[in-house]
């Protein structure tokens, strides 16, 4: 029983990670054919860093992801605070409302946002080219918001309610109480919300495809247009780097969490 479990688990991990391995191997291949590994090289990586248009795209994606996750984290945290302070009935309703966009198919969100932007842009603001960097950013903030709220809410619920009372008792205005006490308590939720928003933003294709114009395009949208012809190996190199970036972020997030838990557990045992 134990052995079958172990074998199954191994198989699942192989299944999950083999595509990444193939991609990584391909990024070090001298030949253009993925089916045949000729010899090992870093050439693709050199080429990648010489290709200014690809780097530009990567830069675009990073700019949108960072800005969108920053804004979504700020707004999301404020929203979570507001929802948390509602009475239980309203809170439940508000949480359902914030959860719906998450389960909504991306293509529906993308098309409806696109329609909205075009309508507002051309009809109300009278612009000819209504899909810009700003519409893309707004769209990304929109779909990131629920993820931040979802991460921050449980931390607010876990927090001892009397902590804010205590802060106000000791002279803090509600705003001071938030920055001096509440923020520290819910920080882990904010950080994981921000990282989640960042990764969601970085890899979004469907929604971005509908809301970006010609003058500002993100990496996934542009790569999609490449796939009609064979992909260049330097793109594999870039994907490998992106994969590593996300991997490092995830490991860092987990380490911070483990370290935090251990520190708490350690200080607790020290007291006894």
């Amino acid at each position, binding site marked *: 029983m134990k052995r079958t479990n172990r074998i199954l688990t191994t198989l699942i991990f192989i299944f999950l990670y083999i595509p990444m391995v193939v991609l990584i191997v391909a990024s070090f291949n001298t030949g253009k054919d993925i089916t045949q590994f000729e010899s090992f090289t870093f050439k693709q990586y050199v080429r990648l860093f010489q290709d200014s248009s690809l780097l530009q795209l990567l830069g675009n994606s990073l700019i949108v992801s960072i800005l969108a996750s920053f804004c979504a984290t700020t707004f999301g945290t404020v929203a979570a605070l507001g929802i948390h302070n509602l009475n239980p009935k309203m809170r439940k309703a508000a949480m359902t409302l914030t959860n719906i966009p998450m389960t909504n198919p991306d293509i529906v969100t993308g098309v409806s946002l696109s329609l909205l932007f075009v309508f507002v842009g051309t009809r109300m603001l009278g612009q000819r080219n209504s899909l810009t960097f700003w519409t893309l950013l707004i769209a990304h903030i929109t779909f990131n918001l629920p993820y931040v709220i979802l991460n921050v809410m449980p931390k607010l619920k876990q927090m001892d309610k*009397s902590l804010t009372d*205590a802060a*106000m*008792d*000791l002279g803090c*205005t509600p705003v001071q109480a938030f920055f*001096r006490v509440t923020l520290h308590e819910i920080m882990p939720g904010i950080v994981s919300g921000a990282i989640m928003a960042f990764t969601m933003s970085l890899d979004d294709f469907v929604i971005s495809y509908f809301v970006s114009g010609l003058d500002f395009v993100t990496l996934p949208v542009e790569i999609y247009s490449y796939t009609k012809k064979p992909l260049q190996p330097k793109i594999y190199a870039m994907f490998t780097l992106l994969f590593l970036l996300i991997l490092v972020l995830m490991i860092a997030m987990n380490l911070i969490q483990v370290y935090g838990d251990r520190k708490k557990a350690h*200080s607790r045992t020290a*007291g006894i």
Partner: protein
Amino acid sequence: MSKELIRLQDLTVEFDGERILDGINLYFNDHEFLTLLGPSGCGKTTTLRIIGGFLKPTSGTVTFDGKKVNDVPPYQRQINTVFQRYALFPHLDVYDNIAFGLKVAKLPKDEIKRRVSEMLEIVSLKGYENRSVDSLSGGQQQRVAIARALVNRPKVLLLDEPLAALDLRLRKDMQNELKRIQQATGITFIYVTHDQEEALSMSDTVVVMDKGRIQQIGRPEDIYNEPKNAFVADFIGESNILDGVMLQDYKVRFFGRVFDCVDKGFAPSENVDVVIRPEDIDIVPPEQGHLVGTVTSITFKGLNYDIIVEFKGFKWLIQTTDYHGVGSVIGIRLNPEDIHIMHKSEYSGMFGDYSSYSAEYDELTEDAADEEAE
């Protein structure tokens, strides 16, 4: 006479149509140790939260130092609170927790340092400055919470069941400690508890509450010796409560006998509740007794025996240091000062009859429950 500091006038609080506080009128004197005592849900914590400014009353006024403070937020009141589960800030160490209020008030650094170390001395936590609050024991966390509140030199300290989470030994130590701190600082303490012993041993004034109303206000001795109604008599210590008739001043009739008592001022032939404390009853040989009864159960309590004695179908609880076996016939004598007379109230008939109480009965039902469980 110390001066009045806080006054609550016709205070009413309602949540979703439910009345939590019902017309509270109460004043607090400067330098006083006042305890709000009552069972859970009696409104004592709600009263405390109103004084702290965390809750606005539905109607009525709160006056502090002669000024109406209904709408003054907690951070502008000269009041600090020790919360039930301490509510220490987990991300700050002991020093920063205590210094919190002073830092918010932007006091000079050296003054903060001086006052915090002075406070650490008072609560005997010197040397713990850099410890994380999670690493402290319950009693130590408690003292940090007290220091964090007192360092701001409030006019009033509110304490919401601060000892509830501690074990018995520590609770006793902390009771003495709190009383000592209160006397040393002269700060008004408003203390909330459901523990009657705690209330009686620490307070200058005890306010007994139930169902959102004040049942009795008085010094601990008065509350114990002269309870105003059956609820207070039962909640503060154990009481036998019987129906009686007040014939005239100093004469009361119950169990078909007329007893001398020390109470007066009742209407002629008024129906009253008669309270007799189990420890006040003297046991004598049957032929010398005012009343004669049969022991139906005996429980060893350490300091004394709790015996249940049946008198004409009514069961009394009597506390005695002598052993009286089940079935033995004893007489009791009641001195005039052992008999306390109360007006009838909505609580009459609800407390003070030990007919339903018996250790054997409890054991029997527990056994039956166990068997059912198996």
